[in-house]
């Protein structure tokens, strides 16, 4: 019984590992192929099935005039938009989360939980519902097809995540910390900045990672709200897909776009192992 269980366990883990890794391996080998080895039948192993070459990777850094795909600018656009929107969301979200965790609010029938729910419920909003008014709204204030416009939209996407994680986190930071600081003569802002924030770094990191993930992987808004002036990475790569489909450069660019977030996976796992994701401190 026990042996069977262990066998099944490792069997399942191996099967899932293969499933997770398969598309990455396929993309990695494809990125070294050329026209012949893609279209002449399916090939797997470099040097055995096909002769690898670096064409797929070289076009990434060539200028578009020379037939390159130029993903460097979209790459930095994506980084800039994701990081700026995440930072703003974290700052605003953390402040609101702190207020919701420490003070009581009451306006008619609206209480703390309702306000928290209002923040989090913005995730329920299907992007398509917002896309049409955002499209018309941004075009009326000339922010369509601009980085600023995208950042504004991404704040709506990311702030709920920041509030969700930080409210939960602050609820588990002992109140005594702030109270001691207040007794020692800090005003509430000093107490927040000097005492509460330094004790909340794990929560801030987890919230930051989630914001970065959900900002980086968005395609929909970038697709609808930008055209030619500003391009984000996912839109650029999907545009590659529609044309003649050079699978090698497609695969190479996909791998390049995925790479930075692998680091995020390590950071998330680290804080998960320490039990910090569920907000525990000490």
């Amino acid at each position, binding site marked *: 019984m026990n042996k069977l269980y262990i066998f099944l366990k490792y069997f399942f*883990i191996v099967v899932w590992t293969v499933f997770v890794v398969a598309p990455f391996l*396929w993309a990695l080998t494809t990125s070294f192929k050329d026209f012949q080895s893609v279209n002449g039948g399916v090939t797997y192993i470099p040097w055995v099935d096909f002769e690898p070459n670096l064409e797929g990777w070289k076009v990434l850094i060539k200028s578009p005039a020379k037939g390159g795909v130029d993903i460097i600018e979209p790459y930095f656009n994506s980084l800039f938009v994701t990081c700026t929107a995440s930072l703003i969301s974290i700052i605003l979200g953390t402040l609101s989360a702190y207020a919701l965790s420490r003070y009581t609010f009451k306006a008619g029938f609206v209480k703390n939980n309702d306000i928290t729910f209002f923040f989090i419920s913005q995730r329920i909003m*299907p992007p*398509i519902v917002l896309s049409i*008014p955002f499209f*018309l709204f941004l075009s009326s204030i000339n922010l369509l097809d601009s980085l600023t416009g995208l950042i504004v939209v991404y704040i709506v996407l990311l702030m709920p995540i920041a509030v969700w994680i930080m409210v939960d986190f602050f609820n588990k930071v002992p109140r005594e910390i702030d109270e001691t600081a207040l007794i020692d003569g800090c005003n509430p802002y000093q107490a927040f900045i000097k005492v509460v924030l330094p004790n909340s770094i794990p929560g801030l990191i987890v919230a930051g990672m989630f914001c970065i993930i959900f900002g980086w992987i968005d395609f929909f808004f970038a697709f609808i709200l930008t055209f030619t002036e500003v391009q984000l990475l996912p839109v650029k790569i*999907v545009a590659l897909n529609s044309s003649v489909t050079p699978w090698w450069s497609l695969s190479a660019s996909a791998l390049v776009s995925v790479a930075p*977030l692998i680091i995020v996976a390590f950071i998330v796992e680290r804080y998960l192992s320490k039990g910090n994701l569920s907000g525990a401190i000490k």
Partner: protein
Amino acid sequence: MNFKHKYFFLFPGLFVLIGILIFPIIFVVRLSLSGWNSYNPGLDYIGLENYIRLFTDDPRFWESFFRLSFLSVTTVILQYVIGFALAHMVWKDIKFKRFFRVLFLVPMMTTPVIMTVIWRTFFHESLGPVNDLLSVFGVAPKWLTDPVIAKFTVIIVEVWQWTPFMFLLLLAGLLSLPKEPFLAAAIDGASPVRKFIYVTFPLMAPISIGAIIIRLIEASKIMDTVYVLTSGGPGTSTETSSFYIFIKGLREFQMGYAASMSFTYLIIMIISLTIIAKVLTKVLLKE
């Protein structure tokens, strides 16, 4: 504590969110009462005409909605079962625990559309590895062009992409469970299966409900994957609500009609998610 300061903490975030959102939401409602399209762009008032058209004369919207329900419920159930299994396996000590944890998280860190582009080559009917390997058995499923199989392709890709998120939430839950119930079960000499049924699973019920609801919310937005993988095809066989609204609104520029669909869709989503949350709470927390 001091009460004057609380508003300074709360309001920046709240007002920024309301400020960005209030216009779109009011605007969607107003737009849905207009006949805005590419011939006649403007906020005229045509009453409930769009809604009447939607409820009486547009089976395609309702088909896309039921398709979406099918896809999201199926994927979320699969993600929950697989995610729970994986989380349970790497929860206690196994070899290379951290390696597997990171590995199982990786798919959710990748941009869905970009991975879908890779999946498209992966499932390519003549040049992709899947059909090449399956040709050993003499079968060659039409992954992207058969109306029935295409749905399963979408499900496979969604499961690959989002099981890690379920895994993450459930593993975080498992790691935060108290130790005492497990000690008690061990003293009673409970078998692993009984331990799971009577200790682990009930303790995880609240976290499970949260995780399932969060994933259902996200899954109901399926759109990127479908757009890149099949463009809703073949025919309309993988078209989801979001995708149909996108076609009507931003391809055919029937803004008014698309807005009425968006608003209806939003209301249905809120109602059905509330019902699902209530039912799940009842079923899972009863024991």
